[in-house]
């Protein structure tokens, strides 16, 4: 018979390397038509990071995402970057790009201030224009300013910058220190059906609430959460590399190493919890890895809630769950008084 259960798990996860420097550098070039090109040494590995980085540059320059092209991942042409690791791209590379865009914007402002007859400190970049703060009627297009900067004044609007998260080394005896600049938090709650005759677990739904500071692109955050949960589902119930007595891997193929497919995926709801980190670009932190962290824990707690057995080793395969159910029944039977 199928037994239903629910399980909750929360987590914390750091952004960036543990203490060690993990800098990013970036260059932002404003073209003379007001569009921009970003150079970054990070790599798009499928998570949509280049889109997010383009949005950060666009926001800083007051232009649209579509106005920015991001060039990445060529050691001959792009500035150094520690790379797509440690959930650091939005936070660390994002900060570098934001600072580089600010440097390029400063050149535009220097050009625009005499055009608008005000001081640099009175300017802001918004809606593809450079305008006077609190008096947006007085404005000039970024295209016009960028063109003038480059073609008339001979001062192209190009900015470069680097950023490294601040940390404090850990004491070797006690581990006390500030290993990371910032952390994100999340909770996932799973609902499962466990068949108490076969041990089979079906995950019905997962409610995921994740913190990433400002969500630069909520759609891509949701994508990360759904992808992370699919990894968590595999870790919870299916995936395991097995070795024989001689140390040879016995299931090095997708026939015998079982991974979740779309048919194994539960219904997922994603909530992005409102947050703002003043140390991140426009308040953003990161979201890549944490999405895969609490899923297995939530599923295993739901199995416990459903059939009262605590599986302490992953994955909770049907065989393992059934063996635990049988062991529990055996002890329960012994307790029946004669």
């Amino acid at each position, binding site marked *: 018979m199928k037994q239903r259960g*629910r399980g909750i798990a*929360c*987590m*914390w*996860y*750091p952004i960036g*390397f*543990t203490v060690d420097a993990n800098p990013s550098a970036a260059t932002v070039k404003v073209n003379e*038509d007001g569009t921009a090109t970003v150079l970054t040494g990070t790599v*798009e*590995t*499928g998570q949509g990071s280049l889109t997010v980085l383009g*949005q950060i540059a*666009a926001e800083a320059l007051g*232009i*649209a*995402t579509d106005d920015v092209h991001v060039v990445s*991942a*060529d*050691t001959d042409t792009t500035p150094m970057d*520690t790379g*797509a*690791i440690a959930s650091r791209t939005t936070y660390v590379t994002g900060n570098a790009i934001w600072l580089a865009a600010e440097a390029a914007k400063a050149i535009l402002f220097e050009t625009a201030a005499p055009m*608008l007859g005000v001081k640099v400190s009175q300017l802001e970049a918004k809606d593809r224009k450079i305008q006077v703060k609190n008096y947006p009627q007085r*404005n000039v297009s970024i295209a016009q300013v960028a*063109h*003038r900067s480059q073609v008339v004044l001979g001062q192209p609007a190009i900015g470069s910058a680097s950023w490294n998260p601040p940390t404090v080394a850990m004491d070797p*005896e006690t*581990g*006390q*220190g500030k290993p990371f600049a*910032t*952390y994100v*938090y*999340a909770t996932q709650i799973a*609902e499962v059906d466990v068949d108490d005759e076969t041990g089979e677990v079906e995950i019905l739904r997962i*409610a995921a*609430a994740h*913190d990433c500071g400002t969500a*630069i692109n*909520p759609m891509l955050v949701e994508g990360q959460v759904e992808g992370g949960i699919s*990894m968590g589902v595999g870790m919870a119930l299916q995936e*395991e*590399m097995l070795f024989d007595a001689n*140390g040879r891997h016995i299931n*090095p*193929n*997708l026939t015998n*190493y079982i991974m979740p497919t779309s048919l194994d995926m539960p219904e997922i709801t994603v909530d992005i*919890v409102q*947050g*703002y980190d*003043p140390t991140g670009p*426009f308040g953003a932190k990161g979201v890549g*890895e944490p999405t895969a962290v*609490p899923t297995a*824990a939530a599923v295993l707690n739901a199995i*416990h809630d459903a059939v009262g057995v605590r599986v*302490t080793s992953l*994955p909770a395969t049907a065989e393992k769950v059934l063996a635990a159910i049988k062991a529990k029944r055996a002890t329960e039977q012994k307790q029946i008084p004669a």
Partner: protein
Amino acid sequence: MNEHSRILEHEKLNIAEPLSDADLRLPAMVPREPFPIETLTPDARQQTRAVGQRATRPDGRLHGLGQTKYIDDLSFPGMLYARIKRAGIASARIKRIDTSAAEAMPGVMAVLTGKEIPTNTFGPTFQDQPVLVDEVVFHAGDGVAAVAAVTEQIANEALDKIVVEYEPLPAVLDPVAAMREDSPKVHAPDSNIYATKVIRKGDVEKGFAESDRIFEARFSTQMIEHVSLEPHAAIADWDANGRLTIYATIGRITLARSDMARTLKMPMSRIRIVATIVGGNFGGKNEITQEPALALLSKKTGRPVKGVFTRGEEFTSTTTRHPIIMDYKTGVTNKGRILARQIRLVLDGGAYCSWSSTTLGKACILSPGPYKIDNVLAEAFVVYTNKTMTGAMRGFGAPQVCFAYESHMDDIAKALGIDPLEIRLLNAFDEGSSSPTGQVLHSVVVKETLRKAADRFGWEPRS
């Protein structure tokens, strides 16, 4: 022209109104009308402000149309195909490698062994990993020789012609057994324990003494592969000027270039790494694998050389997620407040360090959970075994310890008769809480995520 701006006539922008995105794109390969592949939110990419917009990805259209060019879609004139012979034995000394039959095959252009690699070690923390093993095999997925041939089929056949004679050595497979002093050493003569971490805060013994109840449990996790859709793949092109270009599916080109410079003894200015579109990383593509071998095969033959791992190699010859044995001991009050927590983690590090010391550190720091605990002692060890190396994988040990601390939390809640949500809200970090390493935490929203998820799920306390 804005009346307030002072722009002279000759300074005016001489740029025509640009064509729209739809006019600039190539036509789709599929009929547009029956398959609506246009973006769900067509305007998001045109919005200012840009931050917070559900902007679509520019690469999404190419992926959707099957037009993205991965490594295996790239080809250069005269390009050769490389394959690597794997040891297939977990621990052994190599007595002899005979490549002569393979080299004599028509279509085989070059064979490479470990002895030909200028610096045959690499690794992000400890340089303990050979590109191709030359004397000792550390795990069954180790490469012993590489072949470049005009077709992949010939390269595969050549692997069978390479004769390797092994003297088997005792293999260490269990991480706990590997910690014993009398255990055979994976990287002799050093201890198998290659990194440790300690977090000590407050006084756990005092905390346990003050606790009403003490709970103990052991949890363990399995070895997991990243299983990226695209396997590890690279093309090496060593040109006549002695400049090397590597096209690779790799997430960290800066580190990759320094690893290439080290293994090949080349100045960095002579190496160009281009990361193409990476078809899945998840931590598995954070370092070089076959790239130095491909480079040297290209140097030997004067032709570009492509190497693409099989799915089997993805499992046995690349990094995986650490199995961890996790012992938890927690002292709580009857009301559910955690007073002390002691943790011991043993990570199975596999044959090479790779990102193990990072995983060890993160797992140790995160192992007490997002909870206010004044007395913490967490100790973590990572040990060598003669198995596939473990390394970076999404979460760096966090999914493993989260499974342990959250399972443990539910067991405590159940024993004390407290709702699982309530016990978490009771103990969770607040803004300004001190972490296990004494760090004052900012922008802490763990309770908000608990409440939000509970709301969405419809979590009701059970009496």
